[in-house]
Structure formats: C-alpha cells, structure tokens
C-alpha cells in the first residue's frame, strides 16, 4: 500500500540543533501523534515535509510522490495547519478562502460553508480582526476544503478554549470515518490526542526515540510496588526505581517481564497499577534513548 508519507534518512542541521536522521512513515487511515517537548524538532519536521525548508540530505514522499517544491501535484493530497497562520490580513476570511480555492482542483465551497457554520467563524471579518481561536478555525477550513488525504497539524489546538478544542476534535474524528485519510498531529499536549491517535512517535532532541501503537503503551507500562529482602542490582524492563528499606517501587515498560523476574526473586506483596498516557510520556521523554532501549 502506498504510504501517506515517508521520511528516508532526512537530516536538517542548524548551528545549535540537528534533526534526524529521520526514517519513518505513516500508513493511510492512521492517526500518528508526534509527541515531543518544545524545541525537540516537531515543527522543523513538518516544515521539511511540506517543503518550507530545504533539508541537508534524505528525501520525503507523500503518497508516493517526492515533495518537490517546484511541483504542485503532491500538495493536492495534503492539508496543512502550521505553527503560524498566514493570511492576507486586510482581506476577509471569505476572500482569503476564495483566493486559495483556485490552487486546488478538489476545493469545495460547500465544504467551506458547512465548516464555517459548524465552527461559527465570521467569514466576512478581516483576517486581522479575527480572534486567535477564529484564526485557527480559518486555517483548518482552508486545510480541509479540498478534502485532503493527509492532514498535517502543528499543535492546532494550542491556545483554544475547551469548547472550540472539542469542536475541532469532532471534525477530525469525522474525517477519519472515511478510512483512507491519515492525520499527522504534532503536539506536546497529550490530552489532545490520547483518544484520537492510533500510534505515537516520541521526538526528543531531534530524534524519534520511540514509535509504538498507543494501546500497546497503556497495556505494557505499569507501576509496580513490592517487598524484597535480597539486594538486586537490575530489574528487567524497568525505567525508574525507588526504594525505601525493603519496599520497592518501579516503573516497568513491560510489566509481564518485570513480574516474571519478581516472582523468580520471591518478591512479596506485589501490586501493579496501570499508568495514564501522560505519565508514560513523561517517563519516555525524560529517559530518552535509554527508555527506548528498555522497551526494545
């Protein structure tokens, strides 16, 4: 099956930062959450993919087509909501959209009207007079009006109030019902994506340290406490360990492996709890490559 996108050995270097080498891909119909702290390279990744920056090496494909900035065919397949929303500020929202529509063969004015009503955006207002929330909504409308097969979102809900956020998420869930569409959703706020995402990629300091199905994370990671009299130097699959006397508490990236070891060691009073995706993400991003190694 053709990939929604593919990064092959992509590297971008700045004087104080290096992104990559990135090698990853996204299948159609999948929502991939791109999770990382500020400054980890999320926006740079998106800029590279949509051709806003030139990379040092490697290549990127969108539905099998190279993202050549001199061609436009690959752009018809994507909808991009970037970190800044660029409009003609003196024009109304409607005029901005009309202007964009001429670049997309599949643009639908009907879809624009429908989304504007749902989002309750005043399209007659000048772009510069729109609130932050309405600017995001206008950006989303312009990214969705041509029903792209791949939606690229850079922290689209940051700065939105909870009601608007949920309206945006409603629309994203709707888009997914048609199984061909893929979403690449970059954020540092896990709660935005914890229901929506099928898979998560964790980015730390320019490197993807872990790529996994979201449900595997919540299934495999556990907080385990137990009592153990013997001193033990290494617990298996464990990324974090606390001890008070003979009481231990560990965070395991694979609870079955840890529990098996604990039972062999004769640990007592073993209790395990599941962890939220936020708790797990903190451990992964704090631990970086080491955690990825434990998991592997």
């Amino acid at each position, binding site marked *: 099956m053709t990939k929604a996108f593919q990064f092959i050995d992509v590297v971008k270097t700045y004087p104080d930062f290096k992104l990559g080498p990135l090698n990853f891909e996204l299948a159609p119909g999948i*929502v991939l959450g791109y999770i990382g702290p500020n400054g980890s390279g999320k926006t740079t990744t998106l800029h590279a993919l949509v051709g806003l920056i030139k990379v040092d090496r490697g290549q990127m494909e969108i539905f099998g087509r190279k993202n050549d900035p001199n061609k436009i065919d690959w752009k018809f397949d994507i909808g991009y909501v970037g970190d800044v929303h660029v409009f003609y500020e003196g024009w109304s929202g409607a005029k901005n959209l009309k202007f964009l529509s001429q670049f997309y063969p599949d643009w639908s004015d009907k879809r624009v009207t429908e989304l504007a009503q749902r989002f309750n955006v005043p399209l007659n207002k000048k772009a510069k007079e729109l609130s932050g929330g309405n600017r995001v909504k206008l950006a989303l409308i312009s990214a969705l009006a041509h029903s792209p097969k791949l939606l690229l979102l850079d922290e689209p809900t940051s700065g939105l109030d909870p009601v608007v956020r949920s309206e945006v*998420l409603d629309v994203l*869930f709707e888009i997914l019902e048609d199984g061909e569409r893929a979403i690449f959703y970059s954020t540092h706020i896990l709660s935005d994506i914890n229901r929506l995402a*099928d*898979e998560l990629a964790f980015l730390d300091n320019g490197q993807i340290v872990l790529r996994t199905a979201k*449900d595997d994370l*919540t*299934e495999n990671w556990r907080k385990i406490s137990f009592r153990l009299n013997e001193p033990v130097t290494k617990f298996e699959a464990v990324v974090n360990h606390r001890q008070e006397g003979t009481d231990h508490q560990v965070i395991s990236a694979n609870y079955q492996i840890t529990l098996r070891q604990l039972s062999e060691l004769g640990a007592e009073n073993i209790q395990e709890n599941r962890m939220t995706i936020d708790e797990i993400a903190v451990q992964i991003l704090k631990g970086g490559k080491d955690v990825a190694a434990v998991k592997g």
Partner: protein
Amino acid sequence: MLLNLTDISNEPLQSQISRQIRAKILAGELKAGTSLPSIRLLARDQHVSVITVQRAYEALMREELIHSRRGKGFFVSEIAQKEKKELAKQRLRENLELPVKAAMAEGLSSKEIHESVDFVIKEKIK
C-alpha cells in the same frame, strides 16, 4: 450503540468497549444476528481511535461472541444459554481476582471472603 467510556479509569478504553458490548450480548440486549456499527463509525461516535475499536472487536471475536462477514461488517453470534453463563462466570472470576487477592493479603480467610460476597449480594444489590 451507546457506550459509556471514561478516561478516568484503570481500565483501558479497548477493554471498556469490549466489556460493555459483551454485557449487552450476554444480557440479551444485542440479539444473535444483530449487526454492530463499523469500526470507523464506532470510533467516530465514541471519540476513540480506530485501532482501539479494532482491538476491542478482535477480543470479542476471539471469545466467539461476534463474527465478521466479509464486506458486510460485524454481527452478534449465536450463543447457547449455557455458554453465556459460563462466559459470565469466567468474567466474574477475572474481576474477583484482584479484590480477593487484596482481602487475602489483609488476612481474611476463604470462609470470610465467601461471607462477604454473600453480604454484598444481600445488602448492596437489591
């Protein structure tokens, strides 16, 4: 289909989904032959990811509570009354494991645990 899902639970979303559909099937609310919503429709409706629903359906298929027909979607399977009881018991045993273990760790005997179960049935569920 109405499901009641929560993020504030130790139970993962996929188990919440499979448990609630299982309960509807075992209680006879969803009859044999009834079609289930498509994976994508349920995902949209419940605001969960497609893979989450897919895994919940896979679990129910493994238990032979539902089956899929190519191109037609998912349907509730025919389940004998006896088998339903057996499945319900199996679930109960799984659910009891944690509280029973905890009670034993706190020093209760098997007899005392049984008495407590009887008490719950009598006093709490009316």
